[in-house]
C-alpha cells in the first residue's frame, strides 16, 4: 500500500534553475573568489604541524592526563587514599582501595595510603574536580593528552603509571606565546 501524505505534505518551492550565464559564474567566479584568499596566504608559508613529530604546546592550566605526586624530599607518596577524588568524580572513574602504613612498609606520609588507585581514562571527562577535591595536592591534572590505546582496559591507569613521569613530555606554552 502506497503512502498518501494527506494534508500535511509540504510543498517545497525551488528557485528556477540558473541559465547559462548564471551557471558559468557559479562555476568559475565563486571558485576564483575562494582562490583569492588562498593565494594571498600563500606567501606566509605552510602552517602544518607535523604531529606526532611536532606537538602543540599546551597552556599551563591545560587539563590532561592526571599525575600523582611524591614528596621530593622523602620520596613518599602524597596520596593518603582518602577517596575524596572518587567522591568528587562526576564520571565515577576513580577507584581507591586504602591500606594502612606500617613501619616496615611506609608508602605515604599519613596513616593510610592508597593500595589501589585506578583511573579509568576511558570514562574520565577531564573536569579536574579530583584535583580540586584533593586535600594533599597529591593528584594534579598533567599536560599529557596522548592517551589512545588499542584496548579499553589499557586505559585504566594504575597508581604506578600515574606516579611515573610521562614517557614523552608535552611542550608547555610559554609566557605570551
Amino acid at each position, binding site marked *: 500500500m502506497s503512502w498518501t501524505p494527506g494534508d500535511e505534505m509540504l510543498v517545497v518551492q525551488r528557485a528556477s534553475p540558473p541559465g547559462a550565464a548564471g551557471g558559468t559564474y557559479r562555476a568559475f567566479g565563486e571558485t576564483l573568489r575562494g582562490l583569492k584568499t588562498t593565494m594571498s596566504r600563500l606567501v606566509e608559508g605552510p602552517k602544518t604541524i607535523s604531529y606526532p613529530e611536532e606537538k602543540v604546546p599546551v597552556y599551563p592550566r591545560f587539563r590532561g592526563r592526571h599525575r600523582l605526586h611524591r614528596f621530593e624530599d622523602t620520596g613518599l607518596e602524597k596520596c*593518603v*587514599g*582518602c*577517596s*575524596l577524588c*572518587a*567522591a568528587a568524580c562526576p564520571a565515577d572513574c576513580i577507584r*581507591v582501595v*586504602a*591500606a*594502612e602504613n606500617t613501619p616496615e612498609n611506609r608508602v605515604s606520609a*599519613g*596513616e*593510610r595510603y592508597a593500595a589501589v588507585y585506578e583511573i579509568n581514562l576511558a570514562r574520565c571527562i577531564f573536569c579536574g574536580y579530583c584535583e580540586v577535591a584533593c*586535600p*594533599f595536592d597529591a593528584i594534579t591534572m598533567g599536560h599529557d593528552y596522548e592517551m589512545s590505546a588499542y584496548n579499553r582496559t589499557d586505559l585504566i591507569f594504575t597508581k604506578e603509571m600515574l606516579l611515573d613521569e610521562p614517557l614523552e613530555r608535552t611542550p608547555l606554552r610559554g609566557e605570551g606565546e
Partner: protein
Amino acid sequence: MPRPAPDTIAFTVDGLEVNAPAGMMLADAAKLGDVEIPVFCYEPKLGEPVGACRMCLVEIEGIPKLQTACSTPVRDGMAVNTQTARVKEAQEAVLEFLLINHPLDCPVCDKGGECPLQDITYGWGPGRSRFIEPKRHFVKPLALSPLIAIDRERCILCYRCVRFSQEISEDYQLVLQERGADSYVSTFDGHPYVAPFSGNIIELCPVGALTSQPYRFRARPWDIEGSGSVCLGCPGQCNVEYTVRDERVLRVLSRQHDGVDDGWLCDRGRFGYQSFHVDERVTHPLVRVDGELIPVAWDRALDEAAAALGGAGSDSGALAGGKTTNEEGWLLQELFRGALGSPNVDSRADGMLPRELHAALHAPALQATVPDLEFAHAVLVLDCEPVDDQPSLDLRIRKGVRRNGVKLAVASSRPSSLDANAAAVVRYAPGAGEAFCAALNGALGESDAGPGSATRKGVVEELAEAAGADADAVRALAAVLADAGEDVVIVYGERLTHGARGEDAARALLNVCGRVAEAGHDGAGLLEVPAGTNGRGLREVGVLPNAAPGLAPVSPVGLASAELGASAAAGAISALYLLHVDPLRDLPGRATWRAALQRADHVIAHADFLSEGLWEYATIVFPAESYAEKEGTITHPDGRVQRLRPAIARPDAVRAEWNVIADLSKRLGHDVSVLSGAMASARVFEAIPFYAGLTLDELGGRGLRWPARPAAAGWPAADTGPFGLETPPHAPTPNGALRLGTFRSIWAAQEVEVAPALKFLRQRQRAELHPVDAERMGLAHGDRVTVGSNGSRVQATVVLRSGVPEGSVFLEAGIAEESASELDGGGLVEVSPQ
C-alpha cells in the same frame, strides 16, 4: 510494672508550637517540631544524660542562663529559642573549643564523611579557628583491643563509650583517666578491652576516636551501600545493616529495633561477617570419591543426593540446625514427609516434647516479649546464661534492673554474669532444672498458703535437696517473684526441656509460670531462649518428629535427633540429611554420632564450612549460603517473624538453599512448585494457620509478632497446667567425683574460628572448678587436667571460679576440639591431673 504513658504537653520551640510527651528531653522533643539541636554526648540509648559536651545549649525563656537541651525535660508552656545570637555564640564557642585539640586529619580518618563532629562543625561551627598554638598530642593509633583502635587526639571526651561500659554492658572496663585537658579514655592499666559487647562503642563514638580494626581503611562512606537484614548468629536475631562494597560485607552496624535488640550488637554478630569471605568456605558442591571430597557440578551432586535419598526412602533422617530459615525448614519436612515418606525430621538437640507442651509453652497468652523484660516487676532467668545464649537479652535485663528497678532472680547451675544484679540467686546441680522448678513451685505454694505452713515445709527442703540447691535460697527467690507484682517474666533456656526428662521439666516450668504469671496478662509470661537461632520458627514450620507445620498432629511419629543418632549407629538409617548442623559439634553424644555418621551410607550436608564431622564423614556437601546472602523469614523467640534480605551475591557456585531442597524434592517426584524465595515464603504462610495472611511486604524491615495478630487464634489450644507431677529424681551425688555441667559460650561458634578478627577469641576447653574442690584434688588455676567418664576423656585447663557450686565441674560444648559432648556418662566425671 506498667509502661510509662506520659501526658502530652505543648511547648514552643523557635516560636513553633510543638506537642511532646511530658518528661522528654528537650533535644528529642525539639525534633518533633523539626528543630535540630546539635548534640555529641547525648544518646537516649545510654540512659540518663550527662551534659558533658555543652553542644546543646539553648535559651529557655524565664531562665537567665543557657541550658543544656539534652538534660532539660520539657514542661508545659516552655518557650525555647535555639536561633538567638546568644545561642549561636555559645554553639560556636563550644565547637571552637572542641576543635582546639582535634586533629584535622579527616582525610585519613575512618569516620570522615559520617562524622557527627564534621557535620555539626559545618552546620553550627564558627568557620575559622583562632587557635594557632600547637595541639595536644598522643601516640596514635593504639589498639584498645584487637578489635578496636583508639585515637586519643580525636577524642572529645563525650563519655559515651565510658557510659556504655559502665552503665549498659556493665563490664566496668573503660574509664576516663587523668583530669582536665589530660583526660583520656582507657582501661585500667591498659588491659585490652575485650568484652562481649565492646564493638558497640565504635558505633557510639561521635568522632573517629574509636574505630573498628577490621574495617580500618576498608572504605569511605561514599564507596559503600547499606543493606538491612537480620543477624543469624544467635536466637536474639538482632537487626543489622551490612556495609557492602564490591559484593563484600565490610562492616555490620546495628539497625535499631526496640522490640528486638535495642540498638546493640554483640561482637560475634558485629565482627563475624568476616567468615563470609574466607578461603575455607565451601563454595562448590562436593562429593566424596575414593575417600576425598572433590568439587563437582551441581547436577551431579543433586543426582547423587536424589539417588541416595530415593534409595533410602523412609530409612532416612534429617536434622536442621539453628541457622535454617522457616522456608528451608518447611521445604525440608516436605522433602522428607512428602517425597521420602520418612517422619524423621528434627530441629531440637535432645529429646522430644509432646506437641501439647510445645503449644502450652509458646501459647500466645503466656508469651512474653523482649521489651516486657524492661518493664516487668520481676524477671526470672532460668537455666540459661543470656550473655552466651542470646546476648541482646543480657543488656535488656540489665537495663530493666538499672533503670526501672526490675527485680531479677537468677536460677542456674553455672554462675551467671547477671548474679551481681540479681535480688535472689539459686545455684542447683547441673541438669536438675526440673527438681528446681518443682522446689520453686513448692516454695511459691508455701507462700500462697501463708508463711511457715507446716504441711508444705518438708517438701521444699526435699525438692531443693534433690536439685542440689539451698532451700532457703529457693524460698528467697520465690519471695522475690511472689512479692514483686503481677508482671513476672520467666526467661528459660531450651536446654531445660532437653533430655529424657524434658517433658516433666516443661510441666514443672508451666506450674511455676501458672503461679507467678497470669495467662493473657500483657507483660507477663514465658520467654524461651532456644538453642538454635531459628529454633522457634523451625518447630512452627514442622521440623519436629511429632508435629507437622503449624504444630499439627502427625503419624507416624518420627525419631528425635538422639534416637536418630542411635538408630543410625545401629545401622538402621541409610541416609542422613544435615541442614546447617554438624552433629559432632552441635549435638550431645559425640561418640554415638560419630558411629552414626560412619555407619550411614550417605551423609548429605548443607554447610558453609567443613567442620570435623562433615570433613570426615559427609558423602555429599552442598555449599550453604552465609546469612548475608540468605532470603527468607525467621521467627524470633517472642514470635516476631522477621525477614532476611540478601545483601551480597552468592559467591562462586553457591545456590539458594530453598532452591536446592526444592530441586531435590522435585527429582524425587514431589514437586512443591517453589520457584523463588518469595514463593517459598508464601507457601509457608499458607501452610501454617497462625501465620495466615502474612506477606513479605507486611513483614517489612521490622517484622511482625504473629501472637499479636488475629490469626494467632490458629495456634493449637493446650493445657497450660497446673500439672500433677511425680517427684523428680535426685541429682547425682558427687561422692568424690564431680557433677558435669556443660555450657556453650558466646565465642563457641564456627565464625569465631574462621573470622580473622575474632580468631583470638577461639575457645579452648577449660574446666571450671570451685577452689575447694580444686584444693581437695591438689589442682591450681591453669593446671592441665583430664576429665573423664566411662572411658571417654577430654583435656582441659583448670579455671577456678568461686561461683561454681562445690562438687560440680563445667566444661564447654560446641567447640572444635575437646568438646564436652565427647563425655558420656551419668553426669558424673573424674578430674585427674595430667
